């Protein structure tokens, strides 16, 4: 199965980022394709490479970056939502990109499932 993920909450503040990641990992482990993670609302903050959590905590942006590198999952942030929250390509983690809501529509069309995580 081919899966698109819509993530609507920021990292650390809500569990949504963590659940989305664990779900994506499990789907890949089971042989499914995770096509893209589309970041919307505060979800765009997941893509900032400037985050610097404590050493013994997970690094949420790097996890997304690795999912892109290792499994080709596109990590895409909505441009309008990003602009409101101060996210731009200069500060985005490797493997993530800015795009428009048209891309989310394409994701919803081309995938068997679109799964939303948020609050």
């Amino acid at each position, binding site marked *: 199965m081919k899966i698109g993920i819509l993530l609507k909450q920021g990292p650390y503040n809500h569990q949504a980022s963590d659940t989305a990641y664990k779900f994506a990992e499990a*789907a890949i482990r089971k042989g499914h394709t995770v096509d893209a993670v589309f970041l919307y609302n505060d979800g765009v903050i997941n893509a900032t490479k400037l985050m610097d959590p404590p050493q013994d905590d997970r690094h949420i942006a790097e996890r997304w970056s690795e999912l892109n590198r290792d499994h080709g999952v596109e990590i895409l942030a909505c441009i309008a939502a990003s602009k409101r929250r101060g996210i731009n390509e200069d500060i985005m983690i490797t493997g993530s990109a800015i795009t428009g809501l048209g891309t989310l529509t394409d994701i919803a069309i081309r995938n068997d499932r679109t799964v939303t995580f948020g609050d």
Partner: protein
Amino acid sequence: MLHTINKSPFESNILETCIRFLQPGDPLLFIENGVYAVQAHNRFAMLIESVHRTNPIFALQPDLSARGIMAILEGVETVDYEGFVDLVEKHKVNNWL
């Protein structure tokens, strides 16, 4: 269609709202703070039991463990993240937020 609920039933009315639209046979999966709904002996036990007569009910085990919920209502099936993926494969999804 798989319905997921991620909010505590004590702090949100999403559970009641979702149940109003739930079609017979459609599975309900509790994740994140939503898992408190299936904790044994709390005030949602009767509601969950009545839903269970017509709909299969699941809860994400990692979220139950994280919250120290050891005793859950009879008939509720626990799944891990891979089980969550299986449910999504079997059903279209409606993720209530």
